[in-house]
């Protein structure tokens, strides 16, 4: 195998002036009083190779330099230091519909955009009908682009763009637009590209898309390359990151109780026994509740409730689970275990509470003070992943 894309010791810095000078006059004045610059390092020593026909996902938080990396590989930005070697024709899908003109007709726009994407005149002529049919725009082929809905414009752009036959495809969050149906279409097309042996570099926040689709992943954090390798391992590394997470501080309206026994804090622990607020669906999860009883308390009840937005998902207490906590005094912690986090995806809020067994009042109630994120690992929909499975019996 040969490397289709090779990135060696890549650095990219932007110079951000303290004041932006855009006119000649300001620049002339600047000769007297030099402008000061902030050097902002967007990419810091990135090294990786994408082999021919491989699909590489690039993941990381916002501002970690993912898009900049793609733009440098596409030759739109130039590296400050380091080298990029690219073998073959590169087609960037950084934005769909680049150069679309609202006042031209659908057909004319296909021609213009197709040419921008590097199609020859003949390819455009031959592919025209296919594009129009794929986008489902037979009826509108001669209407002006501005009369189409934005969804239709995206569909048109996508149908045109996929006519290209690149060796290397750079994709930036294109999959994020459009409905499920459209996303599925995108996947089908990218799978076709992959089967054709096209090397694909995909920037995405949709970790599940990266997991389904990519052989390898590159994790960037603040411009630094954290890891590069097999997708599952890299996603794990991204979710179960090593630095500490600060849990939100208390707020009076969301906390009440007589404080004879207090909840000092709550930590969510991941499968590596590290505190975390990001979890993969189906992984082990522990909520650790730290308490302090200022006087001896008999059989206090620990409770925990999960919400997503305003939906009450699940609630349980030590009492419901027939656990007697006995006499409690001083400090300690209670762990709430989930061997398999059964939530599919999203942001979840957690209420924890301490109350006497008859629930007549609260010692301490932290109402939705804590939250964590769940990232999907499959395509199931809804809130809970219920471990369902299918079986088919054919009568004939």
């Amino acid at each position, binding site marked *: 195998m040969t490397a289709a894309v090779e990135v060696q010791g890549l650095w990219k810095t*932007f110079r951000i002036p303290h004041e932006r000078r*855009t*006119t*000649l*006059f300001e*620049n002339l004045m600047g000769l007297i009083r030099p402008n000061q610059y902030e050097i902002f390092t967007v990419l810091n020593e990135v090294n990786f190779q994408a082999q021919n026909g491989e699909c590489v996902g690039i993941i990381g938080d916002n501002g970690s330099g993912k898009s900049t990396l793609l*733009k440098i590989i*596409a*030759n*739109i*930005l*130039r590296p400050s230091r380091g080298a990029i070697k690219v073998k073959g024709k*590169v087609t*960037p899908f*950084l*934005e769909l519909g*680049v*150069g679309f*003109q609202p*006042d*031209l007709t659908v057909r*004319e726009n296909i*021609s*213009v955009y197709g*040419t*921008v*994407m*590097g199609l*020859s*005149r003949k390819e455009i002529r031959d592919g025209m009908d296919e594009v129009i049919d794929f986008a489902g725009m037979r009826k509108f082929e001669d209407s002006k682009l501005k009369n189409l809905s934005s969804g239709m414009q995206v569909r048109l752009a996508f149908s045109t763009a996929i006519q290209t036959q690149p060796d290397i495809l750079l994709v930036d969050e294109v999959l994020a637009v459009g409905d499920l149906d459209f996303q599925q279409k995108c996947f089908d097309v990218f799978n076709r590209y992959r089967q054709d042996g096209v090397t694909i570099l995909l920037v995405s926040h949709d970790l599940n898309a990266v997991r389904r689709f990519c052989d390898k992943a590159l994790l960037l954090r603040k411009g630094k390359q954290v890891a590069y390798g097999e997708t599952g391992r890299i996603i794990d590394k991204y979710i179960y990151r090593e630095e500490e997470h600060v849990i939100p501080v208390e707020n009076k309206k969301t906390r009440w109780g007589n404080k004879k026994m207090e909840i000092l804090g709550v930590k969510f622990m991941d499968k590596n026994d590290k505190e975390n607020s990001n979890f993969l669906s189906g992984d082990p999860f522990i909520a650790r509740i730290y308490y302090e009883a200022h006087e001896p308390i008999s059989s206090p009840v620990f409770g925990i409730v999960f919400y997503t937005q305003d939906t009450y998902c699940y609630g349980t207490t030590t009492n419901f689970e027939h656990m007697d906590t006995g006499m409690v005094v001083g400090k300690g912690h209670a762990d709430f275990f989930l061997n398999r986090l059964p939530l599919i995806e999203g942001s979840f809020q957690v209420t924890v509470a301490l109350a006497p067994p008859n629930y007549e009042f609260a010692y301490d109630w932290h109402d939705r003070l804590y939250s964590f994120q769940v990232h999907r690992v499959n395509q199931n929909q809804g809130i809970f992943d219920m471990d369902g499975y299918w079986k088919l019996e054919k009568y004939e």
Partner: protein
Amino acid sequence: MLTGYHIQELYRYRDLILRLAWSDFKLRYKSSALGFFWSLLEPLLMLVVLYVVFSNLMRTQVEHYQLFLLLGIILWNFLDRGTSMSIWGIVGKPSLVQKVYFPRDILVISTCITALMMTVLESVVFIIFMVVFRVMPEMTVVYFPILFILEFFIILGLSMALSALNVYFRDVQFIWRLIVQVGFFGTPILYPITIFPERIRWIVMLNPMAQIITMMRDCTLYGISPEPANVAYVAACTVVLFVLGYAIFAHLEPRFAEAI
């Protein structure tokens, strides 16, 4: 940037250059009721105004003053339009610079070709005028395309520099407007070069546009062949402007996507 490799690359992108130029050209007339007639009307209206004002002053000295004036206006418009449109060639198309890659000079070249198309369209008016006034060009008209091509490359050279500079210094567009305004009066468009006393004519004629317009009129309307020395001077100016324009462009191009 002006290497053999780059020229080959431009050749490979010829479809894109022409497609961008043509779609830009079409867009200019797309939403107007009169369509292409606007571009014919504009020089005509200008001609009428200037003719009414200046014909009394010039008639005695200049044969076919209306044609003389019209050709001057069309040729100057070519420069004015080509450069003014190109100033926006990079800044006005951020998505083509920031979201895809092709050699960026294509944007400027295609804009200049759009201006060329508009000028060709205007020339139709000029040809009609020649027929109406029964002025038949002589053999010397063969110099016309040569001079016209030189003018195109002057425009392209200027456009390269202006479009690139305007990315970093947005007042270039205003400064250039001013220069074009002054140039309109400083170039023999309304008047023949002969209105200047002999000893200062050479200063006016340092301006290559003055040379080009004068020679093009001479060969089209009056059957006078251009002086080889003058053609050589214009050609030299063209090469200098073109190379300099490209050098400025090539120097500023790498940071376009960041600076727009």
